[in-house]
């Protein structure tokens, strides 16, 4: 969260000036702090170990998984065999779950971002009665965890006959109060009202101003919101858990949990090797999306600072 707050409230130029003024050193010759280095190192190791563990253990056979040291490779290198089996186990249901997850993310998170951008821009740049009330509602909505709304949402969707369909996951995902709030604050800063007035004088319609002027300035904020909603939708567990009953509509996270639970049932076979490989495959697209979107994020910031 802190990165985002800084992103929207502190202009990059200001941040750089602040850094120069401080006695900690300069950007070019930062002062070294042993304590800080050690602390950062600990946090780095703490964050990376689960990932390293996952990567290493996804290469093991189930029997190596049980009998060899967790943070080093086993006797056999079974990664490709594991991947092949994970993709084909139970008639290739993993691929189906993968496609479902993509659907929920593209439509859900994409739609949530679009709505947040449109709403945030409108709230920031247009005067209309009830704006304060909308703000209060949004702030309130940010405070209510999605989990608390899941059961009421379920009952509502159930009476509409939408449970156990992809819509029951997509529609609630379309709403991102935090994303809207973020876009609102961001739009207020990033789109100068003077620029909009200039465009109006040139005869551009409000629609054209949004699509041709504002949206470019909003890009860094949009990418941030997209990343947030994407991760939230990709990792959303509770909502699909109660909405969906048919494994054919499960997202990956629910499906993997079902594979994991299979070990603990009478007559069920433990497939921890496939659970691990599946988990690894599940996080790969998120990592790619992060690396890809980060470029836009940075270039967007730079564009903003040059303009100012």
């Amino acid at each position, binding site marked *: 969260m802190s990165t985002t707050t800084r992103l929207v409230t502190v202009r990059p130029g200001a941040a750089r000036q602040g850094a120069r003024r401080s006695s900690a050193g300069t950007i070019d010759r930062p002062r070294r702090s042993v304590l800080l280095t050690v602390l950062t190192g600990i946090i780095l190791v703490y964050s990376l170990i689960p990932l390293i563990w996952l990567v290493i253990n996804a290469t093991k056979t189930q029997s190596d998984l049980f009998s060899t040291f967790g943070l080093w490779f086993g006797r056999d290198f079974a990664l490709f065999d594991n991947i092949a089996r994970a993709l084909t186990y139970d008639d290739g249901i993993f691929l189906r779950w993968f496609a479902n997850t993509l659907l929920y993310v593209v439509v859900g998170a994409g739609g949530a971002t679009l709505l947040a951008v449109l709403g945030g821009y409108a709230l920031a740049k247009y005067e209309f009665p009830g704006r304060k009330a909308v703000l209060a509602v949004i702030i309130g909505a940010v405070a209510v965890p999605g989990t608390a709304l899941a059961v009421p949402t379920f009952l509502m969707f*159930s009476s509409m006959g939408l449970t156990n369909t992809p819509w029951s996951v997509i529609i609630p995902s379309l709403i991102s109060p935090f994303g809207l709030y973020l876009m609102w604050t961001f739009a207020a800063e990033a789109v100068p009202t003077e620029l909009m007035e200039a465009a109006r004088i040139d005869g551009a319609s409000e629609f054209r101003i949004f699509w041709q002027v504002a949206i470019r300035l909003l890009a860094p904020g949009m990418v941030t919101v997209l990343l947030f909603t994407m991760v939230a939708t990709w990792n959303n567990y509770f909502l699909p858990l109660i909405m969906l009953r048919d494994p054919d509509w499960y997202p990956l996270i629910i499906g993997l949990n079902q594979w994991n639970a299979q070990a603990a049932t009478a007559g069920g076979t433990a497939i921890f090797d496939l659970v691990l490989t599946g988990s690894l495959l599940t996080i790969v697209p998120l990592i790619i999306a992060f690396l890809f979107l980060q470029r836009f994020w940075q270039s967007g910031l730079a564009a903003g600072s040059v303009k100012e």
Partner: protein
Amino acid sequence: MTSTIRRTGRRVLIGTAFTGVAALALAGCSGADAEVDTEAVVEEGGTITVWAWEPTLDQVVEDFEADNPGVTVDLVNVGTGIDSYTALQNAITAGNGLPDVAQVEYYALPQFALQDSLQDLSDYGASDLDGTYAPGPWSSVQSGDAIVGLPMDSGPMALFYNKDVFDEYGIEVPTTWDEYLEAARTLHEANPDMYITNDSGDAGLASSIMWQAGGTPWTVDGTNVSLDLTGDEGAKRYSDLWQTMLDEELISPIAGWSDEWFAGLADGTIATLPIGAWMPANLEGSAPDGAGAWRVAPMPQWEEGEVTSSENGGSSLAIPAEAENKELAYAFIEYANAGDGVQTRIDGGAFPATVAELESDEFLNAEFDYFGGQQANQVFADSSAAVVEGWQYLPFQVYANTVFGDSVGQAFLGDTTVADGLADWEETLKKYGADQGFTTD
């Protein structure tokens, strides 16, 4: 059932989730309706949805569809145990999206039965199946005068032990719990990496041990629930033994069903398991490296020379009261749990609940390669016949089991004693029961 009695019964209870408790207890009139003519029903055909996670049902469904071309069975795994109950409870609350058949474990049956959420199968002819099932599972599906499910499998307790480990350290197979404790000490002393068993606070195991010890830590009579986890003899025996083993660090703290657990079973560092008779299929599938090392023995006894046992797990197939296609659903569960489906499931590694199969030579003489050729079913069948009668599950056992870790489970972390944990659990359950509209004492 008469509607007046139903309505009076409803008024007795405050808790919304458990309305209908008294109705079931009071309304003795079972349906004199025509029994289901299953042949005609399957002839007519149709589609039913079955919510179950039991792996051998795949084959049963396939066979049932092959025998009855007009019938489609949509077998859906909506999750295991508690996940599936959440889904079922949600569907009941919402009033739609219900399956026609649901797999419900015995411990969870009372919770749904007391809400009147399950069809009384005696209306459909299930009363005729009296005598078909072993007494333990059969009594588990009774709720008042209603039969709320057909037993699918059972889990008479037995002691699974690693013979290689026992031989290596010169340990005799314990026949009493005193000997079991001695074996635990000998083993752990000889090799500190080895433990007699593992437990990180398993409510199901605790219940089974208390049950075998002759305990009735809770009894249910209509809306009256009596809880006695501090003074009950069975609970006391459990807590004394487990406390001693915990104090001397003889129990491995590994949680059941984890990868570490299967690893421990495969390499012998967990030397025994007191668990239900459905375990062989899990061992074969999930701890293949332990093949040949394991054997099965009767449960250790509390008094020398006794023959007592209890059940651990086991589930039924039930029909929600508001299901759409109840007649076809009944035809299916009768096929699966009393008809040809039983043998199919045994062949797939399931442990039956039906007397005929439990007593058949083919079943009793089956040799298990995993157990070095041992005829393990003989041990399980003897256990099934020795199950202590009179055990009941709480009408909120699902909840009770989920909060076990918060109270008794703390003893496994050394934060409290088993006895204090049980007292704490009792308090929690009394309060919860009262909140749900039960009279608890």
